[in-house]
């Protein structure tokens, strides 16, 4: 049986049937008794059906819990080869139940989910600063191709350096700092990963903004070197 997940968590009550229903073709007759067939470029509908082995109230209860108050969710199900999962963003209708002709009946239930392409979409940017680092603003720059919001910033340093202190990184657009707490590469780090960084809740940027990496501090040995900063954004244009 295929695995069906909502928001990357498998359902206890697995459906018996999942079907992708493409958007209906539009057919226009022409004067010459021919037809013009138009395939809409809209996402499909996903039909998820629970069969006779899954009792209706239990499925409804689980779906209500997983939906919560959020309209958009990610669903996943096992691919045709049985090894991988397909993933899809869907609009999840509010789930309810009524009393049917017989309350003890074990019913078949079908949930119809409209697939969507969520906007804004994810945009990953890696800013790479090779060589020995010195304190300076704008050591690497990136021109934002569209407006967006920074979700998360992380980084890896190749050589941590020596001495007191550490390498401290800020991400800004030249005027506004996006990290309320800058990221640190501590000399004694066992992972060489950025630590302590906190992204501002309103870390928005506009199309054409120059996003830059500022080195705010370096270790006393002045020998930290070569850093990659990863910026995860929602892009308002994809």
């Amino acid at each position: 049986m295929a695995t069906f997940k909502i928001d990357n968590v498998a359902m206890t009550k697995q459906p018996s049937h999942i079907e992708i229903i493409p958007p209906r073709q539009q057919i226009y007759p022409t004067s010459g008794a021919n037809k013009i067939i138009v395939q809409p470029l809209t996402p499909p509908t996903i039909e998820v059906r629970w069969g006779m082995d899954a009792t209706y109230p239990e499925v409804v209860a689980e779906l209500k819990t997983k939906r919560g108050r959020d309209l958009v969710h990610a669903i996943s199900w096992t691919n045709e080869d049985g090894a991988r999962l397909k993933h899809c963003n869907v609009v999840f209708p509010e789930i309810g139940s009524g009393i049917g002709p017989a309350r003890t009946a074990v019913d078949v239930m079908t949930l119809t989910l409209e697939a969507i392409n969520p906007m804004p979409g994810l945009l990953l940017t890696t800013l790479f600063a090779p060589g020995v680092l010195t304190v300076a603003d704008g050591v690497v720059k990136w021109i934002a191709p569209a407006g967006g919001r920074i979700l998360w910033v992380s980084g890896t340093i190749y050589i941590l350096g020596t001495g007191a202190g550490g390498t401290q990184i800020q991400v800004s657009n030249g005027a506004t700092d996006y990290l309320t707490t800058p990221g640190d590469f501590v000399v004694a780090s066992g992972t060489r990963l950025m630590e302590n960084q906190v992204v501002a809740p309103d870390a928005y940027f506009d199309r054409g903004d120059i996003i830059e990496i500022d080195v705010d501090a370096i270790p006393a040995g002045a020998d930290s070197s070569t850093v990659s900063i990863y910026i995860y954004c929602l892009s308002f244009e994809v």
Partner: protein
Amino acid sequence: MITQQGTEIWTLVGVITVGDGKWPKAMPYAGEFVKVGGSINILGTGAGTSTDVQLRNETQAKDILSTVGTFEVDSGTNLLEGAVVDPATCSFAKGDVVQADVDAIPGGADSATAVIEAVVIYFIDDV
């Protein structure tokens, strides 16, 4: 929660040597690996014939590739070849550290500067 696709990059800087944890990266969300590729600036020379790269989920102590990717010394493209994502280990959790391990280098020990790119699916839980 929405699911989105992205490309993660691991950079192997300078002359490449055999070893684990060359370029650790903390994954910002839960997700799974789909495909892995890459390119190398200098292929290197000598017997041994390739620079072999594995992606490893250090947090879960699992190799992500069932077949490691190789930069062959005689490559005509400088691209990573043969990398196969293991469907049994491709999933990762938020915060898992994934690193590039170099399992082999050419006899000349002179391959250098490579970029490993992985197509990943993320489950974004904060939008």
